[in-house]
């Protein structure tokens, strides 16, 4: 399967989880990765710099109307919902909070599912709420690949556990397992 994009939702414990994943993803990892991390609405982008310094994949905040490109990692800006348009560009909105969050994982996942259908991988990582469950379900219904972090290995188990409880996810894995799977999938493409 030629996957076109990976969406990741992560909440409390997220920085450590993302740090882990991005220290291992190879430089030539081509599938664009789009992330919603729940974050304080006033936070600056320092933590993105931290991630960026881990390896040579380019990690940046998603800009309004920016075209999604292979080999890049995008993060939703604080206090905006992030969505994807059919022409593979980003839209930002300040609609009301969803699951007490803005950005919300469900909002990103649902719009990504509509655009990428079965060419999408959705991943729910550590977090202490249930954002992402509805979105992962939408990805599943559109034929995408669904992955949840094994709650036993998550800093905050509730978010992946919620996804697992309501969807037949395709893979339940530790962060190490997720990293291996992604590298394998990306390798199969070329």
């Amino acid at each position, binding site marked *: 399967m030629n996957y076109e994009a990976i969406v990741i939702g992560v909440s409390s414990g997220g920085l450590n989880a993302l740090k882990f994943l991005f220290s291992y993803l190879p430089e030539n990892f081509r599938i664009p990765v789009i992330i919603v991390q729940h974050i304080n609405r006033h936070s600056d982008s320092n933590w993105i710099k931290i991630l960026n310094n881990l390896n040579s994949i380019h990690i940046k905040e998603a800009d*309004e109307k920016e075209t999604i490109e292979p080999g890049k990692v995008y993060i939703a800006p604080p206090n905006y919902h992030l*969505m994807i348009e*059919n022409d593979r560009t980003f*839209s930002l*909105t*300040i*609609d*009301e909070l969803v699951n007490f969050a803005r950005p919300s994982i469900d909002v990103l996942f649902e719009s990504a599912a*509509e655009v990428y259908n079965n060419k999408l991988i959705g991943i729910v990582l550590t977090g202490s709420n249930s954002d992402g469950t509805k979105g992962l379900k939408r990805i599943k219904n559109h034929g995408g690949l669904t992955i949840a972090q094994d709650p036993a290995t998550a800093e905050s188990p509730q978010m992946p556990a919620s996804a697992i409880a309501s969807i037949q996810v395709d893979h339940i894995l530790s962060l190490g397992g997720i990293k291996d799977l992604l590298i394998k999938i990306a390798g199969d493409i070329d």
Partner: protein
Amino acid sequence: MISKDISELDISLLLEAIFQKYGYDFRQYSQAHIRRRIINRMVLSGLEDISDIQSNVLNDEAFASKLFQDLSITVTEMFRDPCFYKSLRENVIPVLKTYPFIKIWHAGCSTGEEAYSMSILMQEEGLYNRTIIYATDFNQHALNKAKEGIFSNKMMKEYTANYQLSGGKESFSKYYTSNYDSVIMNQSLKKNIVWANHNLVTDSVFAEIHIILCRNVLIYFNNDLQNKVQSLFYESLINGGILCLGSKESLCFSNLSEEYSEMDKNQKIFKKKYIENEL
């Protein structure tokens, strides 16, 4: 449960029908945004098929009006992005002080929080008496609320913090009177605000403006529509006039980006370049 997928064509047809019947033109709004709001409305109203929404919109004005509210996102705050207001105080006010008369346009003012913030700022800078603030939106419901100037008391803690971060030196509570769970903004803040229904997509220039604030409105528009609205702003601004966009908006994709210089790049404050008079 929504029974089947909603195609791009379904959405286009629905927007076309809305435009034909009601004159509201959402055809060049962000597709992802429109799709999300339509699905939300279907879930809330218990509709299963996009064709149900079509017929409801066309035959039931109350339903249509609900859908407009859904499509027009009115989320707003006072002194949202305090750093932006701080930059207004520091970089823009000195320019405005040089004008004998100041016309401000809040395009997409929603329920008015932004316009009241501006009134406060202009009062504090001693400019209010020579200022007129045009606060416009195409959502009449939001405008009515804006005119009333009654807001929820719950928000005041956050607005006070925003105000202080923006460089406000007064006690914020002097600008309103509390009444149980709501607050009413002082009459003196409304004095020079003109509330008007104006649709950025279908209406035209209405005055010569010194500073336009259009924040978090253009994000809902596609590139072509953004360009169209940017031309409207450009035509409305005087030479050297100022354009303020939302914190995540930019002029990069605009055909007019060359016609402005950056006053504060981070806070998205731009200044229209002087046009040489061709004699």
